[in-house]
């Protein structure tokens, strides 16, 4: 086994406890590499679980479930701290909105809303956001803590990147942007100081506090962006769009290769030592007119990959396979709705199978009409589909409050769910999660919506719901009523209003399935 360009044998490095970039590790035997990766996970788990926060470490103040330890940066609207999450037994980065910023017009609801949207993005090159909440009157977003250096610090300290190294970083960031754009967001501040190379080599796009839906982003952050990275349209004050993120990525890669920024739109990439294909792909992204730039992050990645040729395929590794899957998923998203509709129309009729199940000590039990559900019961949704599926699970209780059960901020599983079989809410870092019945004596309803394309109208409505409801406990089930929507009878007023508002979308029987469950809950078994 060997790691290209990394010298010693992979087993040596593993045994010595050195960080290993599994996405680049190679071996003659894939099974052996997988096994070594498993051993690394075992060791990491023992270290993490056995570890406790350093009691001698600083403790500035508590914030909700976190102990805030150290301020590591501050800006006009927010401060960033390192904090300790005792629940996850891990350090986290915490961004707290300044009270003055709220007073100056940056609404805390917007701040939190963006945090929750970002928490839905689960992609290894995007900083993982764990949650967003208000504690002690201060809105905050917390995310994974990365040990590493920013790309601008690396260029400053070690000099410019080699072309293949820069292209590799570009590929990782394209995957990050594809995920962000697929979620309907724009990053808005892609730059070298916002990208970290973690110990071990993982490339992470950070400062997601800047990201958001185009409206919010343009209302709140126009003045904060870094001029060198702004596209001509953004400089002229046009609303920020995904194409501007690609332009900024082009500027970033130009900077990695040369240590300088393009001036007046002129690139300086035609130099000895810089592959012409890599230079061409970056110049394409830096086209002054957005319509001349790559159509998507995926298209940009394709150009970069073509430029570095067979190198990418030579890096197969366990994690590498995961990344390939992610890119494929992101590709499906990046194609856009028109392309998606054209594609699905060629497919045979969609036959997704979905079933709410009760999880017991012995396994899973399908829930049928009149199922006897009790407080403490755990519910899951099993799903099988021959194409990527967007799932939405909702619940309304007897008191008339509605909750979104899926998609949820912080869950690893997010829409679209890959084709094949799966279970919701799914697992998280190896922990199996379920919805739990926790209230008795009430009639409640579940609605499950499945679609083979994102339901924009429904998502818009869900995003507007009070997200505090996400923390509410969950309930039981009794009867399945039919599909499609015309046959679904829903008694809860809020659920009925929501389904009615999105009815045009939901009535598409070829691409959407709606399941409704009515039930009563009883005391625990």
């Amino acid at each position, binding site marked *: 086994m060997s790691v290209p360009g990394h010298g010693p044998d992979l*087993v*040596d490095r*593993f*045994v*010595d406890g050195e960080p290993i970039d599994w996405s680049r590790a190679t071996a003659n*035997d894939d*099974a*052996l590499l*997988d*096994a*070594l990766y*498993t*051993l690394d*996970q*075992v*060791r*990491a*788990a*023992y*270290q*993490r*679980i*056995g570890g406790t926060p350093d009691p001698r470490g600083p403790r500035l103040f508590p914030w909700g479930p976190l102990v805030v330890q150290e301020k590591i940066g501050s800006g006009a609207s927010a401060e960033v701290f390192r904090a300790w999450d005792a629940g996850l037994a891990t350090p986290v980065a915490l961004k707290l909105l300044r009270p003055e910023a709220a007073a100056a017009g940056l609404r805390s609801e917007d701040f939190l809303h963006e945090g929750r949207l970002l928490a839905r993005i689960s992609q290894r090159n995007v900083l993982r956001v764990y949650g967003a909440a208000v504690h002690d009157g201060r809105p905050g977003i917390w995310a994974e803590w990365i040990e590493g250096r920013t790309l601008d610090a690396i260029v400053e300290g070690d000099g410019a990147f080699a072309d293949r190294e820069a292209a590799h970083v570009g590929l990782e960031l394209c995957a990050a942007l594809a995920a962000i754009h697929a979620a309907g967001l724009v990053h808005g501040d892609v730059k070298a100081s916002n990208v970290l190379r973690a110990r071990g080599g993982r490339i992470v796009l950070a400062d997601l506090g800047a990201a958001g839906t185009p409206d919010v982003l343009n209302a709140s952050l126009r003045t904060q962006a870094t001029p060198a990275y702004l596209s001509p349209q953004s400089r002229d004050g046009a609303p920020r769009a995904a194409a501007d993120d690609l332009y900024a990525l082009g500027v970033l890669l130009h900077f990695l290769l040369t240590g300088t920024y393009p001036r007046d739109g002129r690139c300086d990439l035609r130099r000895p030592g810089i592959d012409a294909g890599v230079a061409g792909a970056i110049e394409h992204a830096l086209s002054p007119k957005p319509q001349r730039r790559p159509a998507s992050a995926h298209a940009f990645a394709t150009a970069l990959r073509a430029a570095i040729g067979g190198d990418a395929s030579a890096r197969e590794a366990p994690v590498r396979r995961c990344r390939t899957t992610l890119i494929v998923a992101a590709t499906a998203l990046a194609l856009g709705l028109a392309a998606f509709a054209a594609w699905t129309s060629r497919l045979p009729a969609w036959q997704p199978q979905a079933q709410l199940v009760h999880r017991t*000590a012995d396994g899973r039990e399908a829930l049928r009409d009149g199922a006897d559900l009790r407080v*403490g019961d*755990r519910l899951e949704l099993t799903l099988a589909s021959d194409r990527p599926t967007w799932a939405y699970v909702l619940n309304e209780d007897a008191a008339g409050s509605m*909750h979104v*059960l899926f998609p*949820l901020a912080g*869950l690893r599983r997010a829409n679209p769910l890959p084709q094949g079989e799966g279970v919701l*809410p799914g697992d998280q*870092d*190896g*922990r*199996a*999660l*379920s*919805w*739990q019945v*926790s209230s008795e004596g009430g009639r409640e309803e579940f609605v499950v919506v499945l679609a083979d394309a994102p339901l924009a109208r429904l998502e818009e409505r869900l995003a507007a719901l009070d997200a505090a409801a*996400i*923390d*509410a*406990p*969950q309930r039981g089930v009794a009867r399945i009523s039919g599909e499609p929507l015309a046959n679904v009878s829903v008694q809860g007023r809020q659920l009925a209003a929501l389904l009615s508002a999105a009815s045009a979308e939901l009535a598409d029987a070829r691409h959407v399935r709606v399941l409704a469950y009515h039930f009563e809950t009883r005391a*625990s078994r």
Partner: protein
Amino acid sequence: MLAEETTAFLLDRARGGDDAARDRLAARYLPMLRRWAHGRLPPSTRDLTDTDDLVQVTLFRVLKQIGTFEYGGAGSFLAYLRSTLLNLLRNEIRRVARRGQSLELDEALVEDETASPLEQAIGRERLERYEAALEALPARARELVIMRLEFDMTYEDIANEVQSTPDAVRMAIKRAVEALARSLGNGA
């Protein structure tokens, strides 16, 4: 650490009735075992049995019966403690499961109550494959892997434990890890 304080030396003294040696062994192993056992009990059993208590009881019980423990060298005392503790923890999990302990968490999303934090972090199936592959290793190789990967011991500490040199220990661990990885790979 003084040379005469090796585990073999302390075990000999303890077996001969030296209480001070027994205390030294307890002081050496208790923190390591506590740390190791920390994630081994699932949440549903944690309110019934404090993991620390279980670790302490295990260690003291083993030390009390030290006369019957046959020292095989090469870290086998630590491996023996680990295996005794693992069996006790599994019994404890089964005992609580039989009692039908009710679950009281009322969060929207709850973790699998029957999985220990370690299982949650690694994945139950993956952890089982690891344990099975570990069991298939020769005793000495298994002990070295446990000390390095699970107890996070330095080469120096392991060398001291098994009365060898750090370089020799490093080479032996490398071979053991290769064997373990092959066994894991074949079982996958």
